């Protein structure tokens, strides 16, 4: 969950210039969403797995990040393959598994895995502030990048705050509540978190103004790309071309 933990690993993915890496990965994610061909599905599944391998991210952590997707697919695949469309390929009493549904479910699963793996690799191999700086290079409005940066910073603070509030509530019997009283007490916790954040946002604004904030966050340091960056992006450009070519055939 904490995106910064794996950014110090040394790997060809980690050393990739953030601008080239971002544009390549975003391209890869969009193209993966577009794949339908059987061979292409194998290609993107393999490519994403290789990315994880090259980035040297701990496998256990990657599997843990895939958990929400597993759970969703566990629910989605049966539902889609049981939806009556075209021919049934398997039946047991009233339950029928349909061919089209099964294929769609398979396509969706492979696409989703490839995209989520790519997302995990991108954000596991680059610090969030570097990614945001790279996005600024691609002209996303500075207000947006500033909001992204500050939100990221305060998410962690509020997770900590929320845990403290929940602990103190549990010590006073919060767990035993049921029904509307449970909801009311949970809402109180939520509201106190929101009010604290509102008050803090005012102080943070003062603190920023005192240090010369003028509407957007400026940072120093510049990107530099070397020939391996071009090679890495080049490999993906070839991959994209092949995928699109196969899809169009």
């Amino acid at each position, binding site marked *: 969950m904490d995106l*910064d933990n794996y950014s110090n690993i040394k790997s060809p993915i980690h050393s990739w210039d953030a601008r080239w890496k971002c544009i390549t990965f975003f391209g890869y994610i969009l193209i993966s969403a577009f794949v339908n061909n059987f061979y292409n599905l194998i290609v993107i599944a393999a490519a994403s797995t290789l990315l994880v391998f090259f980035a040297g991210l701990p496998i256990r952590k990657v599997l843990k990040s895939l958990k929400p997707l597993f759970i969703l697919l566990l629910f989605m695949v049966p539902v889609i393959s049981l939806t009556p469309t075209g021919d049934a390929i398997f039946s047991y009493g009233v339950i029928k598994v349909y061919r089209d549904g099964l294929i769609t479910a398979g396509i969706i699963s492979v696409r989703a895995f490839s995209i989520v793996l790519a997302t995990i690799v991108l954000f596991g191999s680059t*610090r*969030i*502030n570097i990614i*945001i700086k790279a996005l600024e290079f691609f002209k996303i409005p500075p207000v947006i990048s500033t909001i992204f*940066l*500050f939100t*990221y*910073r*305060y998410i*962690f*603070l509020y997770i900590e705050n929320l845990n403290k509030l929940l602990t103190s509530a549990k010590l006073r019997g919060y767990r035993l509540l049921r029904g509307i009283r449970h909801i009311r007490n949970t809402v109180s916790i939520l509201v106190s978190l929101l009010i604290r954040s509102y008050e*803090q946002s005012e*102080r*943070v604004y*003062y*603190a*920023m*103004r*005192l*240090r*010369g*904030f*003028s509407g957007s*966050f*400026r*940072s*120093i340091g510049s990107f530099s790309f070397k020939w391996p960056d071009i090679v890495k992006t080049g490999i993906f450009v070839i991959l994209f071309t092949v995928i699109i070519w196969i899809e169009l055939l």
Partner: protein
Amino acid sequence: MSSQIVLKVNKLCFSYPDKKNVLTDISFEMNGGERIALIGPNGSGKTTLFLLLCGILSPASGGIAVNGKDIKPNQFNTDISYMFQSPDDQLFTATVFDDVAFGPINEGLPEGEVKDRVKSALERVKCHELIDKSPHHLSGGEKRMVALATILSMHPEIMLLDEPTSDLDLLNRRNIITLFASLQKTMIISSHDLEFLLETCNRALIIDNGKIVEDGNIVDLLSDEGLMKSHHMEKPHSLYPHTHKRAIPGAPRDH
């Protein structure tokens, strides 16, 4: 250390929309290099005074001048800087470097100088190894020290510090006392840690109910038991010679 007047506060008054007379008729002057302890009970107006001094709030009446120049509210001013009570208000970016560099970058300094300032500020607070960390990975004490570095990197002439020792362990508290002693800066420090103020400051302002009630030598003021009690404070233990005050009567003496 210069002894000319660097800060002049003249008949300052302030009210919040929902709270009248938070501060009334605050006047004092400060010489260069002087360190003032701002003490008073909770809600006496210390933080409000700080916010006025650094130009965040604008006074209802009265004026503040730094080196003869009036402080205008809402203007970026590097002469005077304020460290918030909570370091989480002070550290708002994704890395320690970005946070300490925030002020110098906004001053428009060239890149090389920004880096030098960040380096020397972090070295001053002995936190240079944290430069690439994210603020949310720091401990409470580290956050406090980095927050201090974000102020130091701007080279302010006057530093306003709100409860600087509140989340420090004894070692870091000692480090901060040593650091303050080595800084040639004018400071106003507000704290409930009176022993810390005794070691750091030479003058004290006692503020209660929005008014300055006493202004004088810190040891003289803090050792006046009656005065301290009347403003809901206690005379610091170190000012009781040869006695060991015990909170619980009858508790065993250990020497």
